């Protein structure tokens, strides 16, 4: 039986704002430089991207020339805006027709709310690299953001419902030339992933048995970060848990996961030229012991420890032990490997044979030698 969840993601915004570039950098391993060769998108380009085995994104890259926008808003309105999980709307920060851009956006958002009230909305204000030299404080971005939020609120007031189930709107400054793009897209993906609580609790467990500071999972193709151990992604240091504090995680760069996405994808591209593929690494430097390894078919796991007792072999051993069990989350609807972490979970049905039989070892049971 399949557990695949299909999510419709609309990618909209004026022509030339960078929609196809983003999609190509994130999902097709283009470098930012490569996108200069992209042709204009005519009409709607649909593509399906499989994520974690159990999540398929149906990505609708909507051309964006004016006559197509009109078309979306009239004839194709119902097809396009029905059952949308996420709308990603891309603005070009250098655009000189902001009033007009905003009007289009208002039309699109109105149509979305009429058809998919609970869809999440991500506003990506793109090409920030072009303005950062002359506007280092990003005042233009803040103005644009405020305008967009006003539009969102105006539409919310117009709609008759009380807006309880209205999807959130979030705004990110992006550039295809740096890690900000990964940041914005990770944020989209993160809300769509099923069983995220289950993944997180297992990562925390894995982190703790490795005496590590953090265990982080990345999607294998895009290298977008999916989940981390301990406190949620983007938590401020005040919300870190005990293990994170013990490892001194407050010194870490909050942008590190996006940077890792960029580093690994860049290196993968270099390796393509010699016909090889990246498989994983292990490393020791300063006080850190680190491994990055394939976890399931669609993910990689990064574990970082500063405990002097830890060797990479210990981490690799624990990863191997966890692999089969973690694959269950994506592939099955009933968990049937005995696991104390899964026993009381709320996300997936748990029906492990021998759960009550003490002679059957649980996945997370350290055993007599543990």
């Amino acid at each position, binding site marked *: 039986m399949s557990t695949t969840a299909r999510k419709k993601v609309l990618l909209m915004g004026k022509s030339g704002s960078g929609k196809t570039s983003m999609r190509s950098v994130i999902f097709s391993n283009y470098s930012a430089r490569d996108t200069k060769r992209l042709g204009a998108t005519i009409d709607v380009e649909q593509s399906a991207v499989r994520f974690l085995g159990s999540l398929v994104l149906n990505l609708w890259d909507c051309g964006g020339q004016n006559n197509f926008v009109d078309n979306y808003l009239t004839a194709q309105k119902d097809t396009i805006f029905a059952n949308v999980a996420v709308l990603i709307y891309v603005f070009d920060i250098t655009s000189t027709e902001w009033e007009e851009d905003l009007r289009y956006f208002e039309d699109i958002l109105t149509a979305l709310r009429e058809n998919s009230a609970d869809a999440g909305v991500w506003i990506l204000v793109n090409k920030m690299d072009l303005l950062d*030299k002359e506007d280092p404080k990003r005042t233009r971005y803040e103005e644009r953001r405020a305008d967009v939020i006003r539009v969102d609120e105006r539409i919310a007031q117009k709609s008759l419902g009380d807006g309880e189930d209205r999807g959130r709107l979030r705004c990110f400054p992006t550039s295809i*030339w740096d890690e900000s793009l990964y940041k914005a897209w990770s944020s989209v993906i993160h809300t769509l992933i099923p069983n995220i609580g289950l993944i997180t609790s297992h990562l925390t467990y894995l982190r703790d048995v490795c005496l590590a*500071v953090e265990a982080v999972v990345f999607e294998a193709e895009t290298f977008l970060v999916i989940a981390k151990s301990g406190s949620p992604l983007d938590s401020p240091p005040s919300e870190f848990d005990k293990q994170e*504090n*013990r*490892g*001194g*995680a407050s*010194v*870490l*760069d909050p942008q*590190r996961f996006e*940077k*890792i996405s960029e*580093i*690994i994808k*860049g*290196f993968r591209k*270099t*390796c393509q*030229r*010699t016909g*090889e*593929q*990246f*498989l*994983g*690494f*292990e*490393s*020791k*430097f*300063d*006080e*850190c012991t*680190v491994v990055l390894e394939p976890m399931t078919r669609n993910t990689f796991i990064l574990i*970082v420890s*500063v*405990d*002097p007792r830890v060797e990479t072999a210990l981490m690799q051993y624990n990863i191997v032990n966890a692999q089969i069990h973690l694959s269950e989350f994506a592939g099955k609807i009933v968990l049937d490997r005995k696991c104390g972490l899964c026993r009381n979970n709320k996300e997936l049905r748990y029906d492990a044979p021998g759960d009550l039989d003490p002679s059957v070892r649980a996945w997370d049971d350290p055993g007599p030698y543990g």
Partner: protein
Amino acid sequence: MPSAAPPTAGEPSKPRASPLPKDDPLRERILVCGWRKAGKSSCIKTVFQGVPTKDVPYFGVTQKIEKINYDTIIPLQIWDTPTNFELDQLDVPLGSFSTIVYVMDMQQEDMYPEIIARFVQIVVRAHFANPNMKFAIFIHKAEAMAQDYREDNYRQIQQTAEDELLDFPFHTIQNLAPSLNFSDPSVTNALANDLVGSIRYRITSAYEANLREAWSGVVQGVMEMLPSVEQLLLNFTANCGMDNSFLFDIASRVIVAADNRGKNDETLDQVTDYLSRFMQFRELYKNLHLEVDENGPNSADGDEEDKEEEEEEEEYEPEGWWDEEDPEIPWMTQATRLTPNTTLALWQFTPHLALVVLLRTATWEATRGMIEYNLTFLRQGVRRILMEV
């Protein structure tokens, strides 16, 4: 002859940071000159000062001579020169440089004759100031050009420079070498051929790995210990069944020695990129450390005292790079597996140097212990050579 500016024009550049003997005489001096906007500052800054290539279009014009001290396998001092620089503006003898790097813009084809004529004048003059002077031309801004176009321009530049040297009117500079008879064609021919052989041509771009390769040639050119380090690498590589090994300067990602067997551009790009990506990754986590328990052994104070002592000692004793080492800090190591075949691995050797090797994954998995054992000898060998110079 370059027009002689009054010697007073050469005012000393930056005031010295400290009058300690750490400075000049021990450093190999490299003079970087060339046409205005050829890319001199870009060639230096992106490699030795960690400036990201995306900032290259925003460099200001160099106003005066800038001396960049750089510590690697040997201590270097790289001199960046301003627009309209003349050799007479130097405040040290020209002969105190070991290498001259002449940067030229490959895209300025219509100017090749003038640019090269100027280079040849510098070569001749510098040769008499230091007969062992080495010369490198960086044929720069190549990234915009297709491969065959690059090769054509390369040949054209090399040919022009050689012709210019062979036709050089040496009799006009007889005063620089009174003991040689420049009216004798056999003398001037031998000299010209000598000079032709002392020039290395390199195609470079701030956006490609070839700039680092070009610098690698320059650095290796002034390393007296190069042959012995190369021999160690060669033995190690062969004994352990590796494909290639490279000794990198970590911060600049310049290769200071290699086993020099069957390397190609793809491999060089790959190992250089491997090192840069790893260093970017390390940057994200390197400050992590265990928070010490209140009750646990708190060594923080002790450490600080140690450091102060070290700093004080520095002023009294001449120091070597090994004095900067903290013996408590373990060397960096890294191994990246690729599929189907290759593993890339890195071991740090000194604060500035790391070995990167390329080998079959099967070899790595089967003989890792042996490789790491042999590696300790290689590391000791390399360190011993470096400590002796």
